[in-house]
């Protein structure tokens, strides 16, 4: 595997990124408040928005591909419809959707453009209606900042998992707002959670330099991915399409590729010159994108 594209254009640390369902477009956000939509195949920038705050730590692409959501130190999540009209300023049509009492750490659209799930440094997650900004459901239970969330990949289910600074990963029922299961085996903050493609398990990456796999039916941790030589925390994890490989970006500027079933490391990828802060596999599994504090994003295949 090697870098196939390098996206340069952010003037500061890249903090988050997300893929569009068309498998080639991505949205990325950075410390200086800029949110950029790229066609990563051609490396062209298609849209750019400047947020009124710095440290935009969360961004997400809408399922339809027509809007993006982002937020950070402004404690809010805003939705921007994407427009190609040169006369329209994207910031003009901005919708302020979520309101938290501390920084926004993660956001994700649910199955449609109409609802957004957010996680915040105030210890809660919340589900919002995009059009009205109404709070549909809130999720309390974490004892500290919630840093990440991921929606279950099921067409019938209604659950999501969140990870926080209280070292816990919690699975929630979106309808009732109740916590269904919780897992507490990490030694430090959980920076990233991602469901296994079948939806029966999820992986987490933490500051304790390990990634762990938790099975939902067995209700326990079933694997730890760690190596003595890895001492820096994992900031972002994602599975390949078949769930055989787990890609994890670390704060030591590297990406480690783990064999999920064997528990061993397959390879280590160098290239970034600062922390890897975001990592997502493309919707069809042909490549993955990593965003880093070295101001660039790389597509690996």
């Amino acid at each position, binding site marked *: 595997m090697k870098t196939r594209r390098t996206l340069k254009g952010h003037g500061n640390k890249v903090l988050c990124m997300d893929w569009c369902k068309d498998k080639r477009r991505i949205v990325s956000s950075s410390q200086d408040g800029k949110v950029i939509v790229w066609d990563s195949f051609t490396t062209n920038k298609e849209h750019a928005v400047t947020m009124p705050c710095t440290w935009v730590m969360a961004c997400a692409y809408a399922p339809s591909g027509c809007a993006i959501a982002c937020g950070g130190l402004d404690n809010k999540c805003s939705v921007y419809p994407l427009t190609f009209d040169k006369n329209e300023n994207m910031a003009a049509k901005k919708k302020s959707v979520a309101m938290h009492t501390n920084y926004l750490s993660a956001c994700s659209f649910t199955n449609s453009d109409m*609802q957004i799930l957010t996680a915040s*440094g105030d210890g809660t997650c919340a589900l919002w209606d995009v059009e009205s900004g109404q709070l549909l459901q809130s999720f309390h239970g974490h004892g500290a900042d919630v840093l990440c969330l991921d929606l279950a990949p099921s*067409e019938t289910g209604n659950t999501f998992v969140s990870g926080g600074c209280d070292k816990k990963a919690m699975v929630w029922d979106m309808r009732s707002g109740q916590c269904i299961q919780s897992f507490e085996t990490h030694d430090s903050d959980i920076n990233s959670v991602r469901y296994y493609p079948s939806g029966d398990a999820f992986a987490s990456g933490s500051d304790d*330099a390990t990634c762990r796999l938790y099975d939902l039916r067995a209700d*326990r941790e079933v694997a730890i991915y760690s190596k003595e030589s890895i001492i*820096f925390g994992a900031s972002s994890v994602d599975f390949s399409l*078949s769930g055989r490989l787990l890609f994890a970006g670390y704060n030591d500027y590297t990406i480690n590729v783990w064999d999920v079933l064997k528990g061993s490391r397959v390879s280590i990828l160098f290239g970034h010159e600062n922390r890897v802060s975001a990592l997502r596999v493309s919707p069809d599994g042909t490549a993955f994108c990593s965003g880093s*504090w070295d101001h660039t994003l790389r597509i690996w295949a």
Partner: protein
Amino acid sequence: MTIGGGPRGGHPRLQMPCLRKMERLIVSMQDPDMGIKMRNQRLLITVIPHAMTGNDIVEWLIQKYGISEEESLHLGNLIVKHGYIYPLKDPRSLVLRADESPYRFQTPYFWTSAKWPATELDYAIYLAKKNIRKQGDLIEHEKDNYNLLHKRINHTWDFVVMQAREQLRAAKQRRKGDRIVIDCQEQAYWLVNRPPPGAPNVLEQGPERRNGRTSRVQLNMDYYKREIEYCRKAMARSRVKSSICLEGYIKFNEQYVPHDPIMSGCLPSNPWITDDTTYWAMNAATATTPTKLRVERWGFGFGELLADPLGRAQLLDFLKKEFSAENLSFWEACEELRHGEQARIADIAAAIYQQFLAPGATRWVNIDSKTMERTLEGMRTPHRYVMDEAQMHIYLLMKKDSYPRFLKSELYRNLLAEAVIPPETKKRVFPFMRKQRHSSPSPALFLPAGDTEARADDKARGPAAAPVPEEED
């Protein structure tokens, strides 16, 4: 070395568990038996004791962790960047070179975790010393910082200069070798804590965590009631044996690995590697002849068939033949309700009722009486999840009844037989001539900007309704 470590009580602790681990590694590197063999290193004419070469460090790490040279060099570099090991030869650049360049371990006094945050006073004293020694000839950024500090802590400036002079005088009493070492130690410490402009700041952490104490959980009656309920549910929940779960992963893996482009490659070729977008064109929602892998995947589970717009269309055709197409339409309408705009919930629910559930409805779906009763009850105060039970009933009906028949049907078997296996792209004769990368129309283009009706409709239905035609190569 310097007086005044700054008030420790009020300052936030550097929350980096990696530093603890690095320190443990450093300690084991200095172990007299298993650690790095240190000896005297020559630096021009002076002899520095207890030093090692860059090569030694890299070799030791390779031995200890069984990692490659590249990884060992990378790890060593990070240790140097964090100031736990410093170079003697080129002290201004904290870089590990895998050659005979001499390095030394930083004294624990100056460890990143011990002496953090670095105080302005200490920095001022350090710069003042340098200033005196170099008679005003400081590096650009150090000069700027010096002037800034001079302005900011002007009231204690006399103390600063006095301290600086005293330390310089004491240093003159030492042997040359010791003086060099102490200088390097100090310089490394300040390179980490006050990096020059352009150099990455390894101590930067991002926004502070755990600083909000506003919405913490209140330990009151409600909280404990919830905890008891949660524990009760947890104990009552049936757990599956891990061995069975692991078998599940293996089975899933066997099924899906051939479909994983990163594991098994993709035909005709991975667009990211060859710049050829045929793979995407062939697998688009509007493709006329689906690939064999794609059609096979529809057989993995009902969810896979529904998730692929082409698969769903085929299912609809099949259901039409069986006169149960309204089931799929009902399910889709319920999805629209579940994920719809809050303001329109009541309307959508009413529309669903009229179309599918009311007696004499045009597309009546067959649900059992109990579910119908409960749904009607819920319709009095329609909410997002009012159709959940009915939707699940129909979903299970399709999954357990229609889906297996679909897989055995002639329609599906024909699809499988006619499905193509794209030939692998032949390797280009002149690989350095890159294929031109065509752009594709953005999905955002497909809704007229002012047409809010259409936009809401399409949004509710998700990507299935707005196919993106790919440019043919």
